[in-house]
């Protein structure tokens, strides 16, 4: 080993791209640590408060692609108050100083202001890719700055972000006479879009492969776009409906037939049901279909469409596809790998969407399934046991029964046995999200069998501290534990004292932990940030119940940007 030249190690490591493999390589010896650090091009920071940006750049001076995640996932469900943090500014700042050659920046659940986008636009002339997933804090003005200044931009993806509408001009700001755009996603944008600017942009973007429009793009414009970009691979439509332009629909129909490369389709919004035949033109080639934002499509429309999509690998739909629809999926979509069923009415607790029957049908028909998100009104242990037998390859299983605490619809029992079968059978399970009435037994099973589990989400489950303790003792690969409304107290929390440093984070809300317990944890583990989020003034005595707790390992010490309602213990 002492005579192993650095250049050879460097050359070999150049072939290693996975983060985990590179992390492992960096632990071999000091030489490898140094070389790996110098050659890593793509860095993934899963928690923006786990490390200071400057430290990242010091260790990886040649990075070209940076991914940073911010708020805890439960922020998606309004459990994290506004103003909590996760500002992108420090990251953009540090990057601008240390790494002006940055090519890719991906942020998730972070707050990005127009000022930040401005800074970005002027600091990274080489930027190829900007992806903002579930971010907020910026407006169309910020987008205009990016479009104007990042002349080589290939990808601009705003998936799920909240963007303040300040005008339509941003689309006209992309480079002329042509752009390098390959992927543009502004489906989440609220507000109108200039038809001329959009048509002109598509016409001057010869490399465009993926385009996701927002609701406001009318049918006529979509038809024109497809005519000028028939090589599109991924399309998110606007609202497709009758307009007062009589020629729009027929020209859309003929335009879409020319799009022979199209294999991914989404959008539709409040499009009326009678436009579903338009999808039939491209059914044969479709591998990804997302109809989960099309509440007007009824079961019969969905069935008619999906029946023809024999090559589908990813399907996202609303629960009014019904069990009947899922049976059609099971018989037609044998290549299906990922299925997501969302509730059509998120605010109605007793939906009549899909039941355990649909789940069983899909699991028997679609043997390649590896990822499921299933929102249903009822479930049984026997169904889950069948699913476990049929789909032992599942890596991600999320079941959301809309009424929390629901029992087995046939036997009235808790759903412990069902989930137990899932973790026992699906040896590769990495992500699990449970619902229904669950006792400590299910956690015992998880602790015993779920060896590969990395993310566990639990709500309204368990009887006592034992539940959480089983999981903490058992799941050696656990990285993220998210718990809400469970009867876990200080004993459970402290049982994991020495586990949390090996995990990314722990979230506990509406449980039975107290300030005293959290303080003990903080005192025992200085390498963790133990943060209590509380908005009520109730005094600071140890017996006070903690409403929301967020614990994460960090090299950066306590946050210096914490708002008043976040207390670091």
């Amino acid at each position, binding site marked *: 080993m002492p005579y192993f030249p650095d250049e050879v190690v460097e050359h070999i490591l150049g072939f290693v791209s996975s983060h985990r493999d590179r992390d492992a390589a960096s632990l071999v010896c000091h030489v490898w640590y140094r070389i790996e650090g110098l050659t890593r091009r793509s860095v993934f920071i899963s928690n923006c408060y786990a490390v200071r940006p400057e430290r990242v750049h010091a260790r990886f001076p040649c990075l070209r692609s940076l991914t940073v995640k911010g708020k805890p996932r*439960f922020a*998606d*469900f*309004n*459990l994290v*108050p*506004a103003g909590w943090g996760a500002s992108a500014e420090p990251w953009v700042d540090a990057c601008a100083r240390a790494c002006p050659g940055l090519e890719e920046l991906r942020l998730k659940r972070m707050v990005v202001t127009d000022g930040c986008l401005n800074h970005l636009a002027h600091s990274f002339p080489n930027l190829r890719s900007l992806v903002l997933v*579930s971010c907020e804090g910026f407006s169309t003005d910020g987008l205009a700055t990016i479009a104007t200044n990042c002349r080589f931009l290939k990808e601009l993806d705003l998936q*799920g972000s*909240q963007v303040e*509408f*300040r*005008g*339509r*001009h941003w689309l006209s700001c992309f480079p002329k006479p042509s752009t390098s755009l390959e992927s543009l996603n502004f489906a*989440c944008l*609220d*507000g*109108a879009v*200039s*038809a*001329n600017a959009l048509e002109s942009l598509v016409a001057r973007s010869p490399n465009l492969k993926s385009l996701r429009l927002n*609701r*406001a793009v009318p049918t006529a414009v979509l038809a024109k776009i497809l005519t000028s970009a028939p090589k599109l691979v991924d399309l998110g439509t606007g609202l497709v409906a009758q*307009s*007062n332009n009589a020629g729009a629909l027929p020209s859309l129909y003929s335009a879409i037939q020319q799009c022979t490369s199209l294999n991914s389709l989404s959008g539709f*919004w*409040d499009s009326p049901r009678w436009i579903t035949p338009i999808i039939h033109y491209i059914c044969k080639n479709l591998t990804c279909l997302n109809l*989960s*934002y099309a*509440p007007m499509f009824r079961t019969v429309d969905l069935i008619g469409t999906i029946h023809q999509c024999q090559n589908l690998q990813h399907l996202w739909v*609303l629960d009014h596809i019904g069990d009947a629809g899922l049976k059609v999926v099971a018989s037609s979509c044998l290549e299906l790998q990922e299925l997501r069923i*969302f*509730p*059509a*009415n*998120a*605010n*109605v*607790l*007793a939906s009549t969407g899909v039941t355990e029957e649909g789940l069983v049908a899909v699991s028997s028909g679609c043997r390649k399934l590896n990822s499921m998100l299933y*929102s249903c009104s009822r479930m049984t242990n026997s169904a889950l046991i069948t699913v476990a037998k049929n789909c032992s390859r599942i890596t991600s299983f999320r079941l*959301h029964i*809309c*009424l*929390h*605490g629901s*029992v087995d619809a046939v036997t009235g029992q808790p759903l412990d046995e069902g989930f137990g079968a899932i973790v026992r059978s699906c040896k590769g399970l990495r992500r699990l*999200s449970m619902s229904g*009435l669950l006792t400590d037994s299910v956690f015992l099973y998880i602790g015993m069998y779920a060896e590969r589990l990395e993310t566990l*989400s639990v*709500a*309204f489950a368990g009887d006592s501290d034992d539940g959480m303790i089983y999981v903490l003792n058992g799941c050696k690969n656990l990285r993220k534990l998210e718990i*809400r*409304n469970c*009867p876990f107290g200080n004993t459970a929390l402290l049982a994991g004292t020495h586990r949390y440093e090996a995990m990314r984070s722990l979230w506990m809300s*509406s449980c039975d932990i107290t300030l005293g317990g959290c303080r003990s944890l903080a005192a025992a583990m200085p390498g963790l940030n133990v943060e209590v989020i509380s908005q009520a003034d109730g005094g600071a005595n140890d017996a006070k119940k903690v409403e929301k707790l967020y614990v994460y390992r960090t090299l950066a010490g306590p946050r210096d940007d914490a708002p008043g309602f976040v207390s670091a213990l």
Partner: protein
Amino acid sequence: MSTSSTNSAESPAVSGLDYDDTALTLALPGSSADDRKRALHDEHDKPPSPKARAVGWPPVRAYRRNALREEGACKLVKVAVDGAPYLRKVDLAAHGGYEALLRALHGMFAPCLAVRGEGELGSRLVDAATGAEYVPTYEDRDGDWMLVGDVPWKMFVESCKRIRLMKSSEAVNLAPRPSS
């Protein structure tokens, strides 16, 4: 201009919202801190009541919730256009903001209206034949005729009882639309 004799204390039969519900909070409309405690107790004492809701349950991302229509929450108001032979009804709750509403109104009265203006000021509705501009006005809870667009969207949805697209020659008593 017609005024209806409205009892300003009468809440619209259709929406059932009151002002508190339109206040910006982080919880679902109708949920409160008590729901969580109730949910916890329900878990141990008895089956959860169908009405028990908790913040953020079912786990549907806020983005998705906003994109999908809430069943039953429907605010249908009459729309009158000066010169049109019959009225229409539009569901205010189905639209995200003023832009979307104007587009919908345009869609409804397409033969007689056109949408003019690609600029940042937003669309205006004009008579396709004469080019005369229509001013969107609405009658609020107090029976007053107001210019559409002054108050925040949610407040507008809550207080609007009906809409009238007034020919601008008649709209002399209302303040001109600010240009900015």
